[in-house]
């Protein structure tokens, strides 16, 4: 696994879904607040009331927390990865994104996914069907190499036919050279990596 600095969002997801050793479920980061009142200081305004309901002990996560975890797990599974032009090699950021999917896929064995490979508009449209397939296959191979059963992953190619971003220039093109991930089975039962 790469030790490079991960984007904050992925850090939050990784912290959230990684097989962790904490005793309690970890919620998404919230502003730090304590439940104790601040020490009384003459002429200081009264301490603000706590903004977080005290966490109940021994009753498990709330329905809202379960839904948050589920949504985060889905977001992790469906996070897009991007490629350099005319390449199907996985960049470091792509590998990190794929790494974060693994524990969620392990925790949800009923989930199946479809990986769709895409290209930017340059290059021959027919050649890009082949290149898109290659990009999807690269992500599939990486995930199966980390132990995910190949039977859970389907690959397709759309070549340049379904751009995420219209227009010319590297700004748009870089957003189109991508693999998209879609949950094709087991979506309603997805849980966070640990509940």
């Amino acid at each position, binding site marked *: 696994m790469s030790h490079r600095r991960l984007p904050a969002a992925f850090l939050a997801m990784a912290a959230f879904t990684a097989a962790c050793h904490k005793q309690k479920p970890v919620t998404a980061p919230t502003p730090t607040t304590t439940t104790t009142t601040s020490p009384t200081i003459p002429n200081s305004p009264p301490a603000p009331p706590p903004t977080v309901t005290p966490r109940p002990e021994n009753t498990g996560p709330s329905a809202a927390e379960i839904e948050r975890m589920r949504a985060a797990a889905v977001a992790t599974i469906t996070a897009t990865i991007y490629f350099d032009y005319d390449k199907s090699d996985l960049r470091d950021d792509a590998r990190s994104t794929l790494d974060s999917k693994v524990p969620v896929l392990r925790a949800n064995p009923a989930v199946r996914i479809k990986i769709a490979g895409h290209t930017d508009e340059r290059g021959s449209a027919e*050649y890009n069907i082949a290149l898109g397939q290659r990009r999807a296959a690269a992500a599939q191979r990486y995930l199966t190499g980390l132990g995910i059963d190949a039977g859970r992953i389907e690959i397709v190619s759309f070549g340049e036919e379904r751009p995420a971003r219209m227009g010319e220039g590297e700004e748009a093109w870089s957003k189109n050279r991508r693999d998209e991930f879609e949950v094709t089975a087991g979506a309603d039962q997805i849980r966070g990596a640990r509940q």
Partner: protein
Amino acid sequence: MKVFRTAILLTILAPVTRLTAQDSGKVVKLGGTYGAGRLPGIVVLPVPGSNGDSVRAMLQRDLENGDRVTIIGRDADGLPPVSGTPNYDAFAQLGAASIVQASVTPQGELHVAFHSVAEKRPVQARQFDLAGSPLSGEWRMSVHRAADSLELWATGVVGISATRIAFIREGKVWTVDSDGAGAVMVEGAGYSMSPAWHPSGRYLAFSTLDPSSITMRDLSAGTSRRMTPVVANTSNSAPAFSPDGNTLAFARATADGTEIYLMDAMKGGAARKILTGREGGINTLPSFSPDSRQFAFVSGRLRNPQVYISDVDGSNVRLLTDEGVGDRNYGRTNPSWAPDGHAIAYQSDNENRFQIMTISPSGKNITVLTGESANEHPSWAPDSRHLVFSSVRSGKEQLWVLDTEGARTRQLTFGSTVSKMPAWSPQIPRK
């Protein structure tokens, strides 16, 4: 937008030439101008009978689109009136070598007499059935067939007017007549790409996405048949028929790479993989030689996609287009082998824009055909002289026709909806 300035200069100034390259690395620009005196003049007399004006307009436009004759007296003003025998001397003065004297009979047939001005007599006479209701697609195709006969009588070469161009518009397969009229959607199901004509003119193959397969449409019966099974993790694309009509080739992409496959075009059945080298790469876009024993194809086995030639069993593979000078990221792709075998057209990444080029199968004669804007997907007309391709030169991607001998271009499709991936049909058979 990068502009190929040298090519434009030659296009304006140079006479029509085709130069032989000194070595395979030398690229030669095409130039050409039309002089009215270079092409034989032809007069189409006013056509009496129902829809005679439409017939005359179509015949004149078809003859002009062939780029082998010059129309004299297009508006009919100033033409010597003809009752019975033409005044050949008067027509000779106008520069006409031939006179077309046609009429639509009350029975709805097109009667044509073709006069030689030099011989001062009619040299051909023929009756053409005008099928279908007037001005319908079938009726127009009948008139185009007459124009193709006129072309043959005037120049010795059969015309290409009785043909259609298949293309893609918003993910659907369309066809349009060679003169740009009669655009109609052929297949509306799914998302389609890459139409390809069977040499009989009766079938169109194309690929679909999601699910991915090669489909073959019978244009006479109006039915479609899936030629490849829908298999997970497999994308099928870039179909092409062999000129002998027996084989359907296409590219199949799996997790292990993309290879060219062949199958029986008429009987269907299992496709067999043709290995043109080591597996794991991308090999796609087959285009057959005239004798159906070889195909040109695109491979990414070098740094960038290039055009190769292979025997149909995958042996004797050789590189046709060299890497050339400069960083051609998107390489050379989309080969189209001319029906007479003299050249393979393709698109080449020149200065970050695709341009249309041709190369002889030996690799020695290389010609740049376009230098402005971005141009892709060349497909030869049956005369091995005209090409249809897509271009964004008008602002939106549309289809254009190019005369490779004179460099004249004409726009084929118009409007704000993109038209792309053209394929020129053979002669359209009578229904």
